[in-house]
């Protein structure tokens, strides 16, 4: 199995940097994006039509009324 084994200190810093980036994007950027009128309208549209836009296969879709 090939895995990178960089310098430990550098690796920890890189990991913390990635965690910070993920937290910032998911806790700040994306919630802010969800409030934009265009995005909010699209989200409301999908919700009202009960569309699971992230479905990988038809069995993951909600049944249509």
């Amino acid at each position, binding site marked *: 199995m090939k895995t990178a084994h960089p310098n430990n200190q550098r690796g920890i810093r890189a*990991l913390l940097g990635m965690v910070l980036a993920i937290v910032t994007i998911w806790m700040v950027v994306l919630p802010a994006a969800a409030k934009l009128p265009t995005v909010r309208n699209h989200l409301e549209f999908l919700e009202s039509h009960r569309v699971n836009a992230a479905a990988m296969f038809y069995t993951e879709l909600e049944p249509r009324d």
Partner: protein
Amino acid sequence: MQSPYETAPTPATPKYKRLHEDWLVVGIGALALLVATFFVSAKPANDVGVKPEIVNTAKGTIAKLESWKDAPGKAFFTKPKKGEPQFLGGALLITFAVIGTLLMPVAYARGISPGSFLVGYLVLFLLAIFAFLMSTQEVVKQYNFEYVLWALLLGLTISNTIGTPDFLKPMVIGDTFIKLGLVLFGAEVLFGKLVALGVPGVFTSWVVTPIVLITTYWFGQRILKIESPSLNMVISADMSVCGVSAAIATGAACRAKREEVSYAIGVSLLFTAVMMIVQPYIVLKTGMDPIVGAAWIGGTIDSTGAVAAAGAVLGDDAATVANTVKMIQNVLIGVIAFGVATYWSTRYRESGDTNSVGLSEIWTRFPKFVIGFIGASLAFSFLPPLIGWDSNIAEVVSKEITSQVRIWLFCLAFVAFGLETNFRELWKYLCVGKPLLLYIIGQAWSMILSLAMATLMFGVLYADKVKSILAK
């Protein structure tokens, strides 16, 4: 570089052990499917002519995180139409136990100690929860960036920063998670769905799709001269059939490298996010018949969820057509995976040698878990009426129980793939233009052929018949 679908051969691991794991996975998957059927039954209706009610006593047992906007904690509470939200903690514990039980025989066969199994599996499971949490954020979800992408990202982040910890390595068995997930996945591939839209649905999904797949693969091999046939096949299948699920199934069938599957999935998700907005826009702006447009969308957009979102923009009937065309195309995945596994077994050695081989060699090379995948599909498609079951029982078992387990297994698999992937290896694929070009040309070809077939079938030859089906 080793294929992710091969059990790592070590000097102490004789060849029969590699075969053994495939059969073991098929056995575990078959048993899981059988057990799942005990939770579902048909309650006879009192009135004549009324369909029996299907009762699923295991509904909601396997955890499924809910969508959230700005408070991730909401992902851990159900969103019932009536009543109070329920905490998913119990469901997560049950899910952990169920999947752990399925994996135990594999861990035992691999000689993984109970302690290593428990610790490694627990960490992978927590990472999978985190990946689901990322994928259920509403903005992420609406653009179809599925959990596999975030699972891969989390794994890559760990392995390429601090390195995969030694205590995790025994359980970094993405290949096994995928194989087991695919056997369960087989139960979702129901051939009865083929007739849902009659002839036009079959032509749009089952005629155009194989043509696009074969010609794109041929184009990649002969014209673009893509170095890796398995990368070519995974991109061709992912682009022509149904995105991520097709990439996973064909990647396993042709023993593609994990970087190849990851690359194909990344490209597919990126283009899907664009196409799910652009295609309905084209239909609306050009004044195309929404039903034809919906069939076109169903036949070309890779991902099922994206098809549902794009189809809904065109109206209710159009959404039904788009979803149904995609569903029929989804069913093709079983045939494609079997065909690819057979083709690869007859043509390619791991070294890439394409000399022809005898039947026994083909059998030796054939990935046995594909038999489990196809077997589950055939059993769930054709057995229920033969044994006197209501046909909806098989559908409820696969949709409400085993598909949820399969989703967790795929998520665990991509966490594991990330944990065993060096980003530099993945970067090589990102820097080469040919695979991307293959995807773009293949997708353009698919759009042209699908539009022609959708127009012919849904706009000309069977327009009235489709309208009468929709009216029902």
